[in-house]
């Protein structure tokens, strides 16, 4: 026992604030705890609310969409019985088999079928079971859906297509149940990519996505399906698609993230306030494509220090785009090099997940670097 601790201590070369040190000596069992703390928000809307988690909020949005739009159909693998994440529960019973139905197991088929439905003017809401499996649909999404309107001179379009898919780390998902593929698609003009951080955001953003006249990839952080619970307005409401949210305010450092990572960054902001006396702007991008440059630029011009964090690997992750755009627009405002805290440039590992994800310790470490530069 003693030699084990000794060897661990000997391994450590850096200061006690290092993420490795803290992780090795922290007490919570890694397989049970999440790396973030979901803090519910209140909706800025009058009217009745109901306690909903993220999958219930998604389900509610789909229910409303199906109720109000007779052309709307929901389809994908296993959606009939309710879906592997329960997002489509009860919908087939309510709206019938011709409107809520299983497709064969074929992502390229789901995407192509959805595009075809949408070109006739029908509202097509497709589900890809895991974002890790969206790649077979890449051709349909990027070569077809994204370019449909442009290449036809606006004669044809598939704006009524929405493709929903669960993404991101879930604690034990490993290579093929944890991916965040937003960067791949961010490189494809013509798509919209939306990532909600909470049930309230998910319902409003999904309804906007379904109703917007552009094809949308709606990526739902799967770890939030059950763990994120809020009082969600029961009415039909929509939230703006291309606007980032400032979820915490401060003048010293800008923290940018999306999805689950927003909750990590909120905690990092609290840690920074407590341990470093530093106040952070925390920005949820909400939309990856198109992304709200103005909100980020305005914040960085105020703080001069930027951290971008995402689970997806570092190289060519969406943080790279944000960093490049910020250095171009805010160069003279920068007080320190832009920090990116991301998944490592490896596939998403299983038992090593706690080391892989950009958790609060790694992010806090980066904030420290930013303020000490």
């Amino acid at each position, binding site marked *: 026992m003693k030699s084990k601790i000794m060897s661990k201590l000997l391994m450590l070369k850096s200061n006690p604030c290092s993420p490795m040190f803290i992780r090795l000596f922290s007490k919570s069992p890694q397989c049970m705890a999440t790396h973030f703390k979901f803090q519910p928000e209140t909706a800025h809307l009058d009217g009745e609310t109901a306690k909903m988690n993220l999958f219930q909020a998604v389900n509610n949005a789909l229910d409303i969409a199906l109720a109000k739009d007779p052309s709307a159909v929901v389809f994908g693998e296993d959606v009939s019985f309710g879906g592997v994440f329960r997002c489509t529960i009860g919908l087939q019973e309510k709206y019938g088999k011709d409107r809520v139905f299983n497709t064969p197991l074929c992502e*390229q088929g789901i995407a192509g*079928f959805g595009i075809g439905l949408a070109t006739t003017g029908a509202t097509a809401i497709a589900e890809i079971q895991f974002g890790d499996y969206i790649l077979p649909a890449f051709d349909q999404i990027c070569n077809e859906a994204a370019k449909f309107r442009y290449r036809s*001179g606006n004669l*044809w379009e598939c*704006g009524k297509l929405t493709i929903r898919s669960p993404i991101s780390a879930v604690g034990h998902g490993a290579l093929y149940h944890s991916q965040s593929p937003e960067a791949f698609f961010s490189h494809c003009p013509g798509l919209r990519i939306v990532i909600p951080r909470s049930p309230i955001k998910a319902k409003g953003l999904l309804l906007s996505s379904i109703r917007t006249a552009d094809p949308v990839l709606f990526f739902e952080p799967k770890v939030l399906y059950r763990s994120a619970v809020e009082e969600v307005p029961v009415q039909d409401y929509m939230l703006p698609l291309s606007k980032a949210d400032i979820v915490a305010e401060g003048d010293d450092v800008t923290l940018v993230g999306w999805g689950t990572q927003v909750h990590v960054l909120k905690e990092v902001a609290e840690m920074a306030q407590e341990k470093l006396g530093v106040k952070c702007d925390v920005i949820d991008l909400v939309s990856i494509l198109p992304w709200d440059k103005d909100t980020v630029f305005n914040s960085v011009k105020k703080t001069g220090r930027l951290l971008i964090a995402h689970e997806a690997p570092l190289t060519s992750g969406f943080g790279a785009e944000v960093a490049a755009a910020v250095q171009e627009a805010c160069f003279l405002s920068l007080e320190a090099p832009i920090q990116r805290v991301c998944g490592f440039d490896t596939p998403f590992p299983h038992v090593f997940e706690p080391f892989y994800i950009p958790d609060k310790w790694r992010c806090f470490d980066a904030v420290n670097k930013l303020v000490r530069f």
Partner: protein
Amino acid sequence: MCALSEETVVKMYKVMTQLNSMDRIMYESQRQGRISFYMTNFGEEGTQIGSAAALSSEDLIFGQYREAGTLLWRGFSLDQFMNQCYGNCEDLGKGRQMPVCYGSKGLSFVTISSPLGTQMPQASGAAYAFKRQKNGLCVICYFGEGTSSEGDAHAALNFAATLECPVIFFCRNNGYAISTPSREQYKGDGVAGRGPAYGIHTIRVDGNDVFAIYNATKAARDICVSENKPVLLEAMTYRLGHHSTSDDSTAYRSIDEVRYWDERDSPIARLRYYLVSKGWWDDAKEKVWKEQNEKEVLQASARAEKKLKPNWTELFKDLYHDMPQHLSLARKFW
């Protein structure tokens, strides 16, 4: 033998030969550097016109790239074809795509895209929507035997069968996918052999017999519309021309082979013999029509060539429904 009127059959012949003329002149236009690229339909006029004639004008067409005859049948003008090829200011596609990527909302022809087979599951989806809309229409999806190897083809057939979509999958088996002959494309019983495996009504047809194509397409349409089920139709034909202006097929097939098909099984020749035998056509009419045809095509080409290109700002438009800020900024600072 044929229940079609003289008017209809003569129209079929005229459209087939007009397509042929347009192809010859546009191919030459590319060779002369007037347009950048072209694809001809030589040898497949029968499959295109025969099937188009059997459909309702509002049935939705998803094509691959060798279906200009279906558009011509529906009334797409020579000017409209040429405008797209020249990418001029009157191109419906606004100069954004290569030649032969035609599209027409009014004629229910979805704009052509280059990736092969992508149109197939889209056709299944569109047909599903039509079924729900109860509009009495079907969808037809054209594809080559080469494209039938793509994953999207499998997806499309399986989806159409399981979800019961009123779509005709029309395979133009013309013997070649660029240089790859069909014997290197599949080992089984062509494309038709796969249909029953999906649970799809299937027929194989002589693609160069315009009446056989007409009848088969009509029967397929009836199944689609009355039963909401897909049909797979494999039309056996032959690609007389090169794959495109970027191809010289003498590199992989003999001129003798091409001549054999042109002399022994030309859909245009076969229809002309029938017309003549019925007394609906003769050499004099042929001469007049040929001259009129060529003159009209040449004039349309000259008109299209003279028109200006679209405004450069079209580069930035129509990507999204509303132009996003980052694009309008890019356009401003170009």
